[in-house]
């Protein structure tokens, strides 16, 4: 019986897991695994890291990349107070209206407003970026094979192109990008931002912090998912154990054969 359950478990988990890790793209690019505070059974976000990552996003990424599913109020999850969030929102302007005269107007953002887009529309975005459209980053760590590991290594993966590669006009060579020719130039340099908490600010640390922040943006319910999951799964496990002994006791009535 144990063997059967084990076999069922393997069938349920193993086969699809093996599939999902199979090669999708023509060229398989190996993405090294990183340590993240949010991995593991009770993995959590590191609030300080998220705040640093947000600073990187705000100072560097947000010039071109939006975060359309994030409202200012969400930043309370990063450890900011309600007041701090209001102050932060007030640094931004959003479109509103029409007013009683029928005119649209600009006003300071409120906590309930969503992050303003960096460009009014895709055409403007392309015009400002040599024809390339900088993608929205709200779901980026879930929208690429490799997840946060991929995003982290992509940010650091810029290098000189191999001799046989002819780079197209305006593109950069990136070790981890599919096809290797990416429209985004290398952004992260050592010391590019200075963190208020004095954390290291070499390119690798900056990449790590901003990736953690983006993973929070993509999966804001991760912590409650882990903690709920542990309780639910332990409950189910206890249920299975009790059901096993119940089953044994009931079947014992049948006798030996």
């Amino acid at each position, binding site marked *: 019986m144990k063997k*059967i359950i084990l076999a069922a478990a393997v*069938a*349920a*988990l193993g086969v*699809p897991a093996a599939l999902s890790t199979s090669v999708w793209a023509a060229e398989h690019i190996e993405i090294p695994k990183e340590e993240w505070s949010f991995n593991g059974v009770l993995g959590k976000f590191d609030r300080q890291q998220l705040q640093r990552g947000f600073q990187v996003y705000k100072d560097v990424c947000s010039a071109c990349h939006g975060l359309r599913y994030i409202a200012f109020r969400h930043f309370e999850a990063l450890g900011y107070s309600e007041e701090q969030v209001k102050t932060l929102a007030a640094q931004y302007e959003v479109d509103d209206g029409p007013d009683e005269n029928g005119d649209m107007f600009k006003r300071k953002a409120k906590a309930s407003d969503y992050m303003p887009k960096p460009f009014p529309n895709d055409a403007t975005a392309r015009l400002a970026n040599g024809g390339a459209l900088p993608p929205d980053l709200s779901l980026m760590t879930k929208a690429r094979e490799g997840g946060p590991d991929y995003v982290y290594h992509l940010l650091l993966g810029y290098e000189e192109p191999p001799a046989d590669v002819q780079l197209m006009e305006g593109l950069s060579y990136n070790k981890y990008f599919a096809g290797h020719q990416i429209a985004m130039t290398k952004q992260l340099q050592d010391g590019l931002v200075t963190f208020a908490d004095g954390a290291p600010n070499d390119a690798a640390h900056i990449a790590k912090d901003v990736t953690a922040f983006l993973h929070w943006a993509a999966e804001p319910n991760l912590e409650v998912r882990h903690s*709920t*999951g542990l309780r639910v799964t332990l409950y*189910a496990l206890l*249920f299975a154990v009790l*059901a096993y002994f119940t089953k044994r006791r009931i079947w014992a009535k049948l006798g030996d054969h």
Partner: protein
Amino acid sequence: MSTEKSAWRKAYEWHEARLPIVTWLDHSLGTKYPVPRNLNYWWNFGSLAVFMLAVMIFSGIVLAMNYTPHVTMAFDSVERIMRDVNYGWLIRYMHANGASFFFVVVYIHIFRGMYYGSYKSPREVLWWIGILIYLAMMASGFLGYVLPWGQMSFWGATVITSLFSAVPGVGDAIVTLLWGGFSVDNPTLNRFYSLHYLLPFVIVGLVFLHIWALHVPGANNPLGIDAAPADKIPFYPYYVAKDVFGLGVFIVIYFVVVFWAPNLLGDPANYEKANPLLTPPHIVPEWYYLAFYAILRSIPDKLIGVVAMFGAILILFALPWLDTSRVRSANFRPVFRVFFWIFVANAAMLTWCGAQLPEGLPLILGRIGTFWYFFHFIILLPVLGWIETPKPLPASISQSVMKAAE
């Protein structure tokens, strides 16, 4: 002690005399439903499939309350479920992974039927209804995958619906009907949503027929011989207890995936909003269709490929007659038993091939696997029934148990 009946008892008897629903349930899944005493844990997957159907319907109804079937809003409404709806992330992850687990359970259920010859006389109609359920599940799963309106939703829908254009004469008309226009667009999403809500209830109806058809001959068993009344035990409490234990083990595995690897089985491309102007480099269906996708792509001609893909499922209807052996259980068929496991391995290999680009080794293996799939049903099974010498069958279930105890 008073022999006077309680008011509850009287009310119950009054109602039972008019609609004997408790008696009916007792005969269906209770003390009056005799089941062979020797069923092993592979027989748990029928009740697990019913459980998953219920999970899918309940989570699906809640999702439908928060979902907007419009091309400009569908993707955002799913993200709203993930972020703003209370426990929306849980409901959605249960539903999305629930589809995979439903298929895992049903595939094991089907393979169990194949191994123990559960499709053979007198259970052919039971088997047929099972195939209909499987077909309805495949349709429902495909329709549901389109609803989040991600890149793989859109392009998967485009590829799969375009297959129907291979039908001679009316192919393009069928595709236009499926799309509700001349490309996959808002009308497509609307009709897919409507049908995705409809089909699960069709499945519920088919499940009723499936269980009804099960009750006429009664359950098969690992020995594959007809069970004498003395070798049967009531479904309640014995198999209810066993199924509940199986359910406990199953939900632990299910929850581990839902809570710690909810995107493991999904395609990352589906976290990007559908873009009709940008084809993903590699369009793949969900894992549970990959074996059939591999069969489709292993044949260069489009029409023959489509016929082979659907034929691979439809051939199951003929299985009770393609298998000419009268011995049900593979435990007594030493040669068939080997070929059964080769068939399972071949299905796994085809599934792997379906996830690869159709070139080089995956294409060659896909072609070998496709050949073997049909060879197994059309040539091997009929011939094997004639030439194989089965092991002697025990006279009864209790005799077999006593022999094992010696």
